[in-house]
């Protein structure tokens, strides 16, 4: 599959179907790939695609004031299912024109989660991570261990309904349209069983770890505001200290701001240097949006976003309760 991917990217660059293609190459740490920007056909040599290609590369289309999209007439990007949904989101929200992106879909089998690899290695330093079948072998200092793949894959991947791109210009292999995930919202369902006090306690404890480095926001494909509300100072919306109240405000507003827009790519979870459980609230909001408006972000390029439309018969019980 990798060879086919390399050949495809090479051809795209040769035929100038895209001026630049973003993919992944082997990173300097085990289990983590790093973004690769390919401008010339020979650049594909380093390209990889495996369980380590965590980053949602489409976020580069909108980062740094959309510089990449401005510098290049057409940007190619290699996508997993979640990443492809981000491109759809950009198109729907008029951030990037669909025709200016060349989408290369790849068959995704899920991505490793840094935090889970660490946990599996019991805190020991990891030297290499290899998958074979459904078994992952982790080697490290005084360590050699095999675990079922599921134990180290990201939750976003384990409960992913759309592992393959639905919107693409070319797909390597045969895309699955949708896979059956009966427990898609299992973490949310568990969370909902707690009392309000317990939920608040959990959220407070998680968000109190925040150091306000904004890595979650900066890797998030849905966070592309030219000026984030936390950076505005006239008026200033939020205190700049890492005190828990301010951190909670930051995270909850971000949750609401990406309501109906989160594609659950898991980038924020991996990016967080202090391992906050950022997924639970995003998933909770995703569930609410699904139940209330029957909307899932990034599936249909012609569908208006849930938060940008209004129908009379939408559930409105939240107004009363």
């Amino acid at each position, binding site marked *: 599959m990798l060879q086919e991917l390399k050949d495809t990217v090479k051809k795209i660059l040769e035929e100038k179907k895209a001026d630049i293609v973003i993919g992944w190459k082997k990173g300097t740490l085990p289990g983590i790939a790093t*973004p690769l920007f390919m401008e010339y056909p020979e650049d594909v040599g380093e390209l990889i695609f495996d369980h380590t290609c965590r980053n949602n590369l489409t976020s*580069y289309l909108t*980062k740094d004031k959309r510089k990449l999209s401005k510098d290049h007439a057409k940007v190619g990007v290699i996508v997993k299912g979640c990443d492809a949904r981000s491109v759809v989101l950009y198109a729907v929200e008029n951030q990037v024109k669909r025709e200016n992106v060349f989408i290369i879909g790849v068959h995704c089998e899920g991505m490793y989660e840094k935090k889970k690899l660490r946990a599996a290695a019991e805190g020991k330093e990891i030297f290499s991570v290899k998958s074979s079948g459904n078994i992952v072998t982790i080697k490290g200092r005084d360590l050699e261990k095999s675990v079922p793949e599921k134990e180290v894959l990201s939750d976003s991947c384990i409960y992913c309904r759309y592992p393959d791109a639905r919107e693409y210009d070319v797909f390597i292999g045969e895309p699955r349209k949708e896979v059956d995930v009966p427990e898609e919202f299992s973490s949310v369902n568990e969370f909902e069983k707690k009392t309000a006090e317990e939920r608040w306690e959990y959220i407070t404890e998680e968000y109190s770890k925040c150091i306000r*480095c904004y890595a979650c926001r900066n890797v998030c494909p849905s966070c592309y505001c030219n000026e984030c509300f936390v950076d505005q100072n006239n008026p200033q919306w939020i205190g700049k*200290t890492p005190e828990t109240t301010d951190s909670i405000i930051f995270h909850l507003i971000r949750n609401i701001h990406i309501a109906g827009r989160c594609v659950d790519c898991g980038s924020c979870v991996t990016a967080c240097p202090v*391992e906050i459980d950022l997924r639970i609230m995003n998933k909770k909001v995703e569930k609410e949006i699904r139940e209330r408006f029957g909307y899932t972000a990034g599936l249909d390029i012609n569908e208006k976003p849930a938060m940008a439309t209004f129908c009379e018969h939408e559930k409105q019980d939240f107004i009363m309760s």
Partner: protein
Amino acid sequence: MLKVKKDKINGLIGEFLKDYLVFAPVKDGSRSKFKKITDPAEISTGTVKSERSPKDVFFPQSEVLFEYDTNGVRISDNEEKPYLLWGVRNCDTKSIRMLDKVFGNAHQAPDKDMYKDPYWKKKYDTSVIFNFACTAPLSTCFCNWFGGGPFDETGSDVFVVETDGDLILKGVSEKGKALLEKLSVTIEAEKKDEELAETAKKKAEEMMSKPTDISNLFEKLSTVWNEPVWQKLAAKCVNCGACAFICPTCHCFDVSDEGKNGRGKRVRLWDSCMFPIFTMEASGHNPRGNSTQRVKQRVMHKFNYFMENYGSHLCTGCGRCIVVCPVNFDIREVIKGILDHKIKEKVQADV
């Protein structure tokens, strides 16, 4: 050299707790960071540096400069015991010494009191650092690029090697030597202990990868300002502050007033040159408006400007930024990329 038997270590910490505020690595979930301890049992030194650096002890993420109300400003002047830092690794010891160059003084006006940071000095000037040798450095450790090593004792007050749970102590600075003399639980180290320490040193040094020669880095950086290599190196950076906030030497800060209705406090907060608003002016003009410029600033500050002002690189090779970066922006690769970059001869433009 002195020795503290493993069963006496808690007693030693207990002695320190009488005269000092003791800060040591403490487990916080799966990670460790420096915290003020009241009980030796809290300490978790491990074999290598803590995930969070002890920078936070002297330069916390947010620090109140003063409180204000309609009557004016008030600074807290409560006397604290001197600080004792336990279980600091050499990369962090050196980082703290570097930060003192900035906060304890100023490169331009070394004699002016106005340029000495009173908040830093109050904590730093009387502090003692117990620098532990790293017995199992990580693959991301690259202190040896900067002339350091797992058993480097430069900058320590007291240098400590753990052997089979016992501690071997060596006074390095005058302050450290004086402190060791006062202790009651120490015994003289034997030749056997010194041999054990020597073996551990050899083993740790063998674990380090071969260092890259960075002796040209300062000069090279002075010549590459306009080179396209920066775009290439900076392309993947997403401009978050994870590296700067986890870095033991990054020290840029913001000042913000928190409060309302005429009363509140002025605090300083860590900031990062990676954020666009760092240099954004009120007019909307931003001298460092794009990502490449900001990455260049961070690299230049660390490996060129600081050298010019203070005579060393503003990096000790702790490797924390490599571990936390969400896009695997590896500073070692960046340094290599700069060193390997070949500047093309200027081609005469056709008129």
